[in-house]
């Protein structure tokens, strides 16, 4: 089974199958393959079937929404009313959200069916999905390898056909990197395009929700539902949301695409570079005007990101204190013991590491040297992009320096793990939209190509990716699964 969101939508509209039928098919695939892949933390069979039945009724009455009856999965940091929202953390293992995230509510509004909640790195902190209280996710292309992170469960679920589409979040690459490593299409929109309400925060100034799917066309449809101003998120944008689907098919003749030399420098696997070169050739054949550009401050993006994201997370995660919800330690002797043990036992190692680094960076005497300096660098990184966009319409490069690595290969070396995000992280610092699409394989593992757009130009990104996908079939490749 390798149906896409749009195919399902058309099939439902034509009555080729019912939502209940297709939902049952997906639930059956999840039951069969999830024990190996571990993509899902929670499978919501009953809710899915109830929603599917309601969708079939709506379809029969002819009052279907844009996604009525289409089964989808949500990353387990989007709050879902009445359903556990764990953030892949022990500290929220027992947390049942009393409300829907705006993104989740939007999907309900448009009629989508929720299959379940997908695995992830704990609190979205990680690039391999190995930092989950519920265990690693396996890459469907090679189960000994990681799917990337932090939205690894969503990416792997779409790659394995356990869901035609899924939501993710991207703080430093958490949609684009797993999309690349799992061979699916994923887009991180402009900061502010998608409401963060009900999306459990990691780095508030960087976090942005977005979809995974099998194609740019499918991503366009899902992003349409996710986007738009939300009065409950002060940082969401009032910028009008264009019809992303209608923007597809414009072609890319004359589109100016910049290749930052820093994205093709040392550290990039030469075989990936070769795959990307081939993809660039396709784009050139489609009429793109390929230019060399420079983003001189790229190397500063990782240290900058790790100060900003960790500073914010150290504060964002303070609310998990064992007092009002979530995990509380057994028999605390006093308040301090309650805090220390609830948090000490509730959080995993990487989360604790980031909270401690962030706390340090914000401490009296270090604030100027770290947090303030990082804000200055952030501005420089943003300026690099602004400068580049005076000359080009899109920026292109590899999504990751390597293909999916073996599970456990980098767990003892956090810095090497952090370097996986070298090409993706600067967009979050700048707030720009970016996407990853599959463009080939190295060692049987997918290679992702990243496209970066100017502010609120998701339509431009999706159009370019769609143009490429019209003449190639990398996005249609599917792994053979072991049950």
């Amino acid at each position, binding site marked *: 089974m390798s149906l896409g969101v749009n195919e399902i939508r058309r099939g439902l509209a034509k009555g080729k199958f019912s939502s209940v039928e297709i939902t049952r098919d997906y639930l059956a695939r999840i039951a069969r393959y999830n024990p190996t892949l571990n993509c899902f933390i929670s499978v919501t069979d009953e809710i899915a079937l109830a929603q599917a039945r309601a969708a079939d009724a709506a379809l029969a009455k002819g009052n279907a929404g844009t996604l009525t009856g289409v089964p989808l999965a949500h990353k387990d940091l989007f*709050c879902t009313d009445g359903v556990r929202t764990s*953030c892949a953390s022990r500290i929220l293992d027992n947390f049942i*959200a009393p409300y829907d995230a705006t993104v989740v509510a939007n999907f309900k509004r448009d009629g989508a069916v929720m299959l379940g909640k997908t695995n992830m790195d704990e609190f979205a902190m990680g690039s391999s999905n190995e930092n989950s209280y519920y265990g690693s996710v396996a890459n469907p292309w090679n189960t000994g390898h990681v799917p990337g992170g932090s939205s690894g469960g969503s990416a792997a679920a779409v790659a394995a056909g356990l869901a035609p589409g899924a939501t993710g979040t991207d703080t430093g690459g958490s949609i684009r990197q797993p999309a690349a490593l799992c061979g699916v299409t994923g887009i991180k929109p402009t900061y502010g395009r998608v409401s963060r309400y*009900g999306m459990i*925060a990691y780095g508030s100034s960087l976090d942005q929700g977005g979809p995974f799917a099998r194609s740019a066309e499918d991503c366009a449809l899902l992003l349409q539902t996710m986007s738009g101003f939300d009065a409950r998120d002060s940082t969401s944008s009032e910028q009008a949301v264009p019809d992303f689907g209608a923007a597809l098919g414009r072609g890319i003749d004359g589109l100016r695409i910049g290749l930052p030399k820093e994205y093709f420098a040392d550290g990039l696997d030469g075989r990936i570079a070769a795959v990307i070169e081939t993809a660039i050739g396709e784009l050139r054949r489609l009429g793109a005007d390929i230019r060399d550009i420079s983003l001189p401050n790229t190397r500063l993006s990782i240290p900058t990101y790790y100060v900003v994201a960790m*500073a914010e997370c150290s504060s964002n995660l303070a609310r998990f*204190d064992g*007092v009002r*919800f979530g995990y509380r330690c057994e028999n605390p002797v006093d308040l301090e013991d309650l805090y220390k043990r609830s948090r000490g036992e509730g959080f995993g190692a990487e989360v604790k590491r980031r909270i401690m680094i962030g706390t340090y960076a914000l401490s009296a005497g270090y604030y100027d040297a770290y947090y303030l300096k990082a804000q200055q660098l952030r501005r420089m990184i943003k300026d690099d992009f602004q400068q580049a966009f005076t000359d080009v319409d899109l920026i292109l490069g590899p999504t990751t320096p390597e293909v999916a690595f073996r599970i456990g290969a980098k767990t003892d070396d956090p810095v090497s793990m952090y370097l996986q995000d070298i090409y993706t992280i600067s967009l979050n610092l700048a707030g720009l939209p970016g996407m990853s699409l599959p463009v080939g394989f190295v060692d049987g593992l997918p290679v992702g190509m990243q496209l970066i757009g100017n502010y609120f130009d998701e339509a431009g990104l999706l159009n370019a990716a769609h143009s490429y996908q019209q003449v190639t079939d990398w996005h249609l490749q599917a792994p053979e699964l072991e049950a």
Partner: protein
Amino acid sequence: MSDWESVIGLEIHAQLATRSKIFSGASTAFGAEPNTQACAVDLGMPGVLPVLNREAVNMAIRFGVAIDAEIDHHSVFARKNYFYPDLPKGYQISQYELPIVGKGHVFISPSEGEHLEIGITRAHLEEDAGKSIHDLFPEQTGIDLNRAGTPLLEIVSEPDMRSAKQAVAYARKIHSLVRYLEICDGNMQEGSFRCDANVSVRRKGEQKLGTRAELKNINSFRFLERAINFEIERQINLNEDGASVVQETRLYDAERDETRSMRSKEEANDYRYFPDPDLLPVVITDADIARIRDALPELPEQKKQRYINDLGLSDYNAELLTANRETAAYFEDALGDAPDQCAQLANWILGDLAGALNRAGLEITAAPITPTMLAQLMQRISDNTISGKIAKEVFEAMWQGEGAADDIIEARGLKQITDSGAIEALIDAVIAANPGQVEQFRAGKEKVLGFFVGQVMKQSQGKANPGQVNQVLRDKLKP
């Protein structure tokens, strides 16, 4: 003692009178069942986000305009990070750099004829925490988050005050101002208006500030004065004993009338302030400020100047009448009914009415005598219907609820006798009855006139016009 000078600055937390909280839609009403007015945002649930209540910003600007402060066009909310069970998010949203209200000032008159300008360093917006309730459950602490997220304006003064009396005058001034502006109900018992005092002492003539202590837990002006005086004395004694003052937070204990050190651990907090990424910087345009300035009510200082210049009131009376908006409103209402009775009204409001209210423990808004009733009384004095002395009796009867002045005068037959025939008849009778005193007067003993006036007034039951009585008596007693 006189070698020492005390230096005092106040931090005042005024709870803003918005209907909903500063970052959520929950109600701010006081006194609801615990945790019934705390929504997901107030509870700091995962994934929720704050949305600024613009009304709180407008109220802060209102205050800023009223104290003639600099108001930045760009203001930022910051997170103040610390762990406490009644602080749901593990941080308080406050302002650190770039507060809404910058430097301003107010004028105070701690005593008659004394005028001081007190600088205000800044005023910033922040959210209140919840309440920890330690005495309700054995060995457990209850947490009520109804108050969490209530908007506060923290008003920080310069260390410009030199005595507890000045500090109280300043606190009262701010209290009056926020109520004039209708941005705070000023209820100190419910905690809507809280004062912390920074107190230090230094030798007179010394420029450098001494080490300060911060006094907390003060919930009345009386306690503010006492706490500061206790602390000044404690610090002077320490200095004179050769010991040093420790920088710390001290709690005022009203029952024992003393300040006590809080655990020093609380002081070791590093709040790790940083701009809150969930909230955009607040943008305030000149047009916003102008609109708020134009809608400002007359402020106490302006009112006071108007009373002095246009109504001819004394500086002292003008200050007292404008000290709170209710008193000023009472005065102005009464003046509307009796426009030519300005001085009389001021004296009666600040004298008899204030005394009666004080004895009854009532606010002026609850006075049984309305401004209209008082105005009528003034007019009856002025048009000689009654004397000032009889007016006191009428006032007392009005206070007891016997009706308006005219009704009481009528019912009790208090109308002043101005009919000269009637007065002459009374005088003739008194003269006839006291031949001895007539002789004494005619022999040059002027003082005896008082005796005759007294007798006539007594015979008239106080209703004869005293001026007239005096005049007629003099004529008739002439030898």
